[in-house]
C-alpha cells in the first residue's frame, strides 16, 4: 500500500490504537473529576453528574506534591544518566572487540536484572545499613544506575553494532585512539540509541517502588512512586478521586521531562561531534 491509500490506512490504524489506549485513561479522568459522593458509583457512571476540579486543585496546591515530583525527576534523571554513561564504554568494547568471555560477561551482567527485587531488598537494606548509606538520595541513585546498566549495555551495544566499522577504521588510519573514535565518531552516530536507553532507564526508575520504599523514610525525600500513597485514603474512607487526580497530575511532568531530556541528550552528544 503506497501513497494516499497507505496514509489513510496509517491514520485509521493510529486512531484505532489511540482509542484503545486512551480508554482506560479516560476512566481515570472520570474518577479524577468526581466528588466524594460520586466516586463510590465506580463503574456505574462514566460522566459524573457533578464534575469538579476540586481534586486537581487539592493536588496542585499541595506544596509537598511538587517536592515529590522533583525528587522523582532528580533520582530518575541522575540514575539514567549514570547508567548510560557507565554502560557506554563496556558496550563499545563488546561491540568492537572480539575477546573470550564477552558473551559470558554480558549474560553475567544481565543476571543482575534477573534477581527478583522482592528478595534482594532485604539483604540490600542490611548492606546499606552497614555502610551507613541509608536515608540518602545518593545510594538510591547508585542503585538505579546499577539496575539500569545491564539494560543500557545491551541496548547501546545493539546501537553501536549498526554503525559501520569502515568509518572507525578511517579515523584510526588518521591516527585517532580508540577512545577518541568512540567519542567523536561512534557516539554521535549512535545518539538515538543512547537517548532511547536514557529514556527507558528514566521511565523504569519512575515506577520503582521497592528501593526508595526500603531506603528512604523521611517524607521530604520520597519520590512520587512511594509518596502517592499519601493520597490513597484508607479501606474505610478511600479517597480514590484524589488519588486519580494525583496520578494524572504526576504523568504530565514525567512526560515533559522525559521528552525534553531526551532531546537534550541527543543534542549534547551531537555537539560533541561538531567540536571534534
Amino acid at each position, binding site marked *: 500500500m503506497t501513497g494516499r491509500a497507505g496514509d489513510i490506512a496509517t491514520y485509521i490504524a493510529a486512531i484505532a490504537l489511540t482509542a484503545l489506549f486512551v480508554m482506560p485513561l479516560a476512566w481515570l479522568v472520570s474518577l479524577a473529576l468526581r466528588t466524594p459522593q460520586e466516586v463510590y458509583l465506580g463503574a456505574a457512571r462514566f460522566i459524573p453528574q457533578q464534575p469538579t476540579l476540586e481534586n486537581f486543585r487539592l493536588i496542585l496546591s499541595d506544596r509537598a506534591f511538587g517536592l515529590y515530583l522533583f525528587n522523582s525527576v532528580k533520582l530518575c534523571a541522575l540514575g539514567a544518566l549514570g547508567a548510560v554513561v557507565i554502560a557506554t564504554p563496556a558496550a563499545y568494547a563488546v561491540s568492537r572487540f572480539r575477546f573470550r568471555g564477552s558473551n559470558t560477561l554480558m549474560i553475567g551482567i544481565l543476571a543482575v536484572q534477573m534477581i527478583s527485587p522482592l528478595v534482594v531488598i532485604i539483604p540490600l*537494606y542490611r548492606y546499606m545499613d552497614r555502610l551507613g548509606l541509608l536515608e540518602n538520595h545518593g545510594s538510591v541513585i547508585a542503585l538505579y544506575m546499577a539496575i539500569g546498566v545491564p539494560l543500557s549495555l545491551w541496548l547501546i551495544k545493539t546501537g553501536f553494532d549498526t554503525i559501520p566499522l569502515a568509518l572507525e577504521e578511517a579515523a584510526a588510519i588518521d591516527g585517532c585512539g580508540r577512545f577518541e573514535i568512540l567519542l567523536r565518531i561512534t557516539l554521535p552516530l549512535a545518539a538515538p540509541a543512547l537517548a532511547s536507553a536514557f529514556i527507558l532507564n528514566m521511565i523504569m526508575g519512575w515506577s520503582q517502588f521497592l528501593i526508595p520504599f526500603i531506603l528512604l523514610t523521611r*517524607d521530604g525525600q520520597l519520590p512520587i512512586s512511594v509518596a502517592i500513597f499519601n*493520597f490513597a*485514603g484508607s*479501606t474505610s474512607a478511600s479517597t480514590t478521586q484524589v488519588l486519580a487526580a494525583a496520578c494524572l497530575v504526576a504523568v504530565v511532568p514525567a512526560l515533559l521531562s522525559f521528552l525534553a531530556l531526551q532531546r537534550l541528550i541527543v543534542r549534547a552528544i551531537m555537539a560533541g561531534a561538531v567540536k571534534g
Partner: protein
Amino acid sequence: MTPIRPNRLALSVAALMLAAPTAVLSQDLITRDRVGPEDAPNVMTFRLTAYDLYSTDPATRETFEALFTTFILANPGWRLETQLATDNIGQEQARMLEQVGAGRGPDCAMIDSSALGLFKSAGVLQPMNAYFTQDQIDDMFPFVRDAVSDADGNVLAWWWFTSLQVLYRDTALVPDAPQTWAEVQDAALVTVAAGREGILFNGGRWEGTTFDWLPNFWAQGGEIVDAEGRPVFNQGDNREKLLAAINYYKGLVDSGAAPARVTTIVNYDEFSAAAAAGTAGMFIGGNWQYGQLRSTLAPEDFANWELSELPGPTPDQRATGTGGWTIGAFSDDPEKVRLCAQIVWDIYAIDGNAFQGLLPTSAAIYDQFDAYDGPEYDAFAAALVNGVSRPDAAIYPEISNQFQIMLGQVLSGAATPEAALDAAAAAVDAAFARL
C-alpha cells in the same frame, strides 16, 4: 469508669482561636514531616498513615492539626518526626520489622490490628502499662484487651478504633433481618427474583475475603490456631465447622443467591457502588459503609437500607470480625513511650474517633459523644459483644493467604471444599514448620 471530662477537642479549638495571631504559628508547627518547633532538642519519630493529620479532606486535617498542636504545646522541648505508612500492609509490616530489627524503626507507630500479632511475637513492642490507669485498661472491650496484652498482662499496644462486618439489606425487598444462613440464602434469592444481583461479599484474593468469612467459622466456636499459635483448623471438630462455613458460601454461589463475580471483589467500595447503582439486594460490608451509603445514595433510597448482625448457622451462634488500628511503641526510652501513650489517648482514642465516627474500643467513650447517638451504633455495640479479632499468631497471614485461595477455588468450581481445605492445610503446615 473514666470520669466524663470537658470535651478536649472543644478546648483545643478554643485555645487555638484565643491564640489567633499564633494561628500562623500552628502552620509552622506542623509540616509534612514534623510536628512541633524545628529547633526542639528532643525528637520522637512517629509513623502514621495519611488518614488523619495528613488527610486530603480539609476538615479532618484541621481537626487533627488542632489536636496535635495541643499535644505538642503540652510537651515543650519535643518535636515529632513524622513518617508515612503506606496502605500496602504486607510490605509495610515487613519493612517495619526489618527496620526495627536493625534498630532503625520508628519510636512510635501505627500498626494495623491484623499485623499486631507479628510484632508481638517478634518481641519488639514496649509495655505501656505505666502510662494508662487500671480503669482505662479494664474498660477496653475484652477482645481488645486480649489482643493487645501478652501472657504477663503487659499492654504492648493500644488498639484505638475498631471496625466490624455487618449484613446490609434493602428493606424494600427484605423487610426482616435474616437470622440464619438459610434465611440469608432465601432472602438473597428473593432479591434475585426481583432483578437484583443477590447478595454480594468479598470473594477475591485479598485479606478482606478471609476476614469477612471467618465469622462464619468463629460463630460455631471454631479455632484457627491454638494457644501456642499452631494451626489447628483442620483437626477434629474444627474441620467440620470449617467445611460447614465453606459450604455456606458455596451454596450461595451455586444457588444463584450470590453472583459468580464475588470471586473478583477485592474492595469494599464495590458494595457501595452496587447499592448506588441499584443492583445489590444485600451485602456483607463494614460498619463504616453505612455513612458512605448515607452520603452517596438519594435520601429515599438510603432510607431503605438497614444493617444487622451477621447471621450464623443458628440464630444463637453469632460472630463478627473486628479490625481497626493500634499504636505501639518500639523505643526503649521511657519518655518516648510516655509520649506515645499520650498521643494514643489525647489525640486518637477519644476525640479523633468521635470526629471521624470511628468505633472506640472502650465502652464508656460511646456515652460521651453525640456522634454515637445514631441507632446504627446500638447495632454495632450489640454486634461487638460477639466480636472476634484475628489470631495474633505469626502464621496468620499465611493462613489467610491459603484461605483466600481455598475460597476462590471452591467458589469458581475449580476444587471441592474437602480437597481445597486439605491443600490449604498442607500448605499452612509446611509454612509453619519453616517459621
